[in-house]
């Protein structure tokens, strides 16, 4: 399992292009999920630290309502729910937030991680130094 420093770098690299990402998809992007419960726990810890440093904020997104921002309290509360609600799906090899069953998906607001301006600068510096997807096997 990678350490939190490496996971944060990967989070920055994954968010550099779009600046936002569904929280569960972000976790599945920055690791190669195995189902180990420490994976969402470490992800939650990393997000909490990045949030405290002002590098990310939390928002919600869904098809009927589009993007909505969350207050700091709501954002922190959303981060705190990650390890409790994430369930591993062995068939797909991914973690999913069990609160949002489906299909149909994206009908109710789901949490997403959004880079702040300071976070975007940090993500640019990570990508400049290391690039994208360095943890994924080259194809």
């Amino acid at each position, binding site marked *: 399992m990678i350490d939190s420093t490496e996971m944060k770098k990967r989070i920055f690299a994954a968010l550099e292009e*779009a600046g936002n990402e569904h929280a569960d998809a972000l976790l599945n992007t920055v690791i190669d999920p195995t189902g180990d419960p420490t994976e969402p726990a470490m992800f939650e810890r990393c997000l909490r630290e990045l949030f405290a440093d002002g590098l990310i904020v939390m928002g919600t997104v869904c098809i009927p309502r589009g993007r909505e921002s969350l207050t700091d309290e709501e954002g922190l509360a959303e981060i705190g729910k990650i390890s409790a609600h994430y369930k591993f799906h062995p068939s797909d090899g991914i973690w999913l937030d069990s609160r949002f069953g489906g299909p149909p998906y*994206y009908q109710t607001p789901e949490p997403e991680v959004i*880079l702040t301006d300071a976070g975007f600068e940090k993500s640019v510096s990570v990508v400049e130094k290391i690039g994208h997807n*360095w943890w994924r096997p080259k194809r």
Partner: protein
Amino acid sequence: MIAPSDSASRSRPLGASEAASFLTSDEKRAAAGYDALGGRLAERESPSAKYTDDQPRVPAGQSGGGQWTDGGGGGSGSNDGRVRVAQARGGRDRSPILARFPGATPAQEARWAVSDAWARDAIARARRLDPNWRPTPEFSQTIEGEIRANEAQAREAEARLQELHRDAIPNTNPDWGVNRLTKELYDRGFSLDGPTRAPGLQYENSSGATVRIMERPRQRYRTDSDQKHYNSFYYRYRPGKGKPEGSHITIPDKPQKD
């Protein structure tokens, strides 16, 4: 013995005499009650008579060089010393490949034309997506080598296309521009989520797929995927809820209509 009528003679099987390979054609026909065809026709029936090494060809360097001739010894008017080409010529001299390989047969010429068209089409499609891509150059001394080279380049271009479209949205055409692709997303039930931080738009559908159409970034990182920079737009596709995004897929630029 009753002589066979014309229709009967056409339909009567030669039977066992047909299989008797030690008989000449005339002997087989005589055994079945038919008239002899004569030496010349009997010769023509023999498969070995269809090809001979010494059948004359038009000399290299002349128009139609390498083609079979009738040998100049068969009929009247052929003993005037001129060589007469046996095949119909129908504009073969205008083919560019004949200028390089005058000995090419019509079959080789046709195969070369097919392989050339295949290679040109595949290379053009690959270069619409990756303008910097070029096939490995191939040189050959023979028309067969030229055909193989064309086929190799076509396969190389198709492999490049496949590589470029590895993580593409299923059942989309690599030639679609950004407008057609967006229309297709709406037709498939995608809805606009909203803009992304870098210039771009994100779409989602209720089956969990996500597509992010992004503008080409102004800045290019050393480690960037080339597909972000080939054209004005690229996209990334996530095939299902929570799954990681695929690699960057360039969207070919289309000429603007007035």
